[in-house]
């Protein structure tokens, strides 16, 4: 079924929408969640939450990019879940590693308290990502959005791990410079 047909089902409040979404993007979303949570069971629960959130969200929104829309919901739900888990027990995993890497882009003190500032920040990051060369953009999003392991990205590109690490390091430095230029205190 085409994405727009599935979205139409959501609009009509037809529960078949969830079944169709699960059939088409279930495994994809489970993969996104599993990257962050590292557990099949947690990923499954997270994806169920994704369907619920999508069900609630779509009457207000009509996403043009349905797959990206689902990925964002899944990723952010998984990240919230991961934060709750790590608050109880110090965990590691892909998200922790990605967080450590991003530390070099920022100072650690919060200055993004207002909703407006937060919205501007992700817009700035979106612009930054879209201005990156194709390969760097791919590597950056795979690592920090999907939280893919460096090895998995290297294998998908058929390059050495070190090459991906170099791209990531260079891009993080670029991001730090970019955020500074945009007026963020990093």
């Amino acid at each position: 079924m085409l994405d727009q047909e599935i979205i139409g089902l959501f609009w009509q409040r037809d529960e078949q929408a969830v079944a169709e979404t699960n059939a088409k993007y279930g495994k994809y979303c489970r993969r996104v969640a599993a990257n962050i949570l590292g557990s099949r069971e947690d990923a499954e629960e997270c994806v169920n939450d994704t369907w619920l959130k999508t069900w609630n969200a779509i009457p207000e929104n009509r996403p043009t990019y349905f797959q990206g829309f689902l990925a964002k919901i899944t990723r952010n739900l998984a990240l919230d879940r991961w934060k709750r888990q790590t608050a109880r027990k110090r965990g590691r995993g892909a998200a922790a590693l990605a967080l450590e890497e991003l530390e070099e882009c920022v100072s650690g003190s919060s200055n993004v308290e207002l909703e407006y500032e937060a919205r501007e920040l992700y817009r700035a990051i979106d612009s930054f990502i879209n201005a990156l060369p194709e390969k760097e953009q791919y590597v950056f999003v795979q690592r920090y959005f999907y939280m893919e392991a460096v090895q998995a990205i290297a294998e998908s590109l058929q390059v050495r791990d070190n090459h991906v690490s170099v791209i990531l390091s260079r891009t993080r430095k670029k991001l730090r410079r970019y955020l500074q230029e945009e007026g963020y205190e990093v």
Partner: protein
Amino acid sequence: MKKEELLDAIGKISSETVERNSRKSQEIRAQRRVSWGRWVAAAAVAVMVGAGLFSYRQLLPREDGAVQEWKGDGQLLSSREAPFGGDWEKPEEKAPFVEISTLLAHSGSGNTMEELALRMVQVNLGQYGAQYEEVAAISSEALEKARGEALEEEEGWYRLSGHEDLQYLIHASEQGDTLWKFGWFRSEEYPYRDVLHYIYDVDSGDDIQAVLLTAADMDNSDAGKKLQEEIGEYEIRDQEALKQLYDILCSMTCYGQNRWDLIDYGGNDEGMVESVRAGRYLAIETDKGIVIDALKYTAVSGMFYEYCGVAYSRLSAEEKETVDRLFRIEVPEEGESTGAADGEDSLREYDSVEDLLQDSWAVVKGRVLEADSGNVRSYIYTTYQVEVLEVLYGSMEEGIIAVNMPGGVLAGEEAREMVAEVTEGKDAGDIKNIGNASSAGNTDRLLAVGDETYLFLVSEPEDAFGAVGGYCGEALLEDGNVLLDSSIAGFGEGISVEGFQGGRMPESDFREALEELAAGKEAADPYS
């Protein structure tokens, strides 16, 4: 900003960006798997269309990101689930990567290089026929084990294991396996971009990790070798520089082999020293672990070329300027002195202290009061103010003399070390603006303020008095010894006068030897 806020913000990027990236993921996988096959298929299409057999294969991404393989007549051949849409596809098990250095034989084993140089073959690689030259390998058995993916369009030909590039191929035959290296495409003109892409698997500046530059070696006279040593070797690792170089390489057109008529790297009856100065040989290291070692560059005509007369289009003035800068090539304008290696303009070299003394109008012992280094066209010139403590030979009236110490050009790690040494260990004035330090000159023995030294003073055309020798002339005092290093004083293989061999002797012996040499000699006229 906190890292958590940054991670959250990345999670809110537009759905369009996320979705585009997801689709890119599918494309990359599909492209990597069929990149070679598609190239061959494209050539096959051209043939088959003519024969009315339109049956090419096409890979089309589906809306959900899966990849479907279609024939030209619309028949679906296969369909692969997208990695995100279907089961997460395990990465294909990669064959072990074979380093070419483990297969290459040193000269003397197996066939000689001379014999192998005659064995060339054309391998059809889709749109191009490529000329390959056999190279000596350690053994047929080792090559058999190192076979990678078979070429679809040429039976019996294999990539190296773990390689996607085509720089080296293995050919299997009843006589055993042999190793072949890419030379050029058999085409009158082709873009070098195609060579980088198809042969070396290089598609952007990011795919290049470093470029090692070495001096051109077309002149092996003493002067040519000396200049080669001065130029030495150095690496480019700066990513911006590598991108610039990649773009320039991609812009070039290759005109195939045996085009010496197009290649001009200078040279005349008097030798090719200037060709050495303007030439660099490249070793381009890619991120996949291969080294492209075929390209040579000459600033004489601003062009790249290769072994066997493989010629490339000349660079534009702007491109040439960029490459010359990246390669640290400075070719003097017509009529301009090149300094050290030049003929009449350069300072005279001496074979012995006796000869040196013959030209000197004084030999003095002095103490350095001031030192100031500067950079003139990448040459270091250091000016010292030296207080004369004692006159050992000739006549000397001034209490303080100015001494010019010309240097030479040096680059790379050696230069950095030297500058660091000078900066940290010697008070030689302001050298911040020195891009290159001197190797053949005296910079490695730069005098510091307070140092004592013996100076052989010879006349210079201008007012300043220069220390003598090929590049220098000071006899540095260090720990009670006089250093008269042959490389410093320009004495070639060494100093022939008794007692000076090795370039180091006690100060008392130096003075005694000098006294003996000076006896009966008449000092030169400083104003003649």
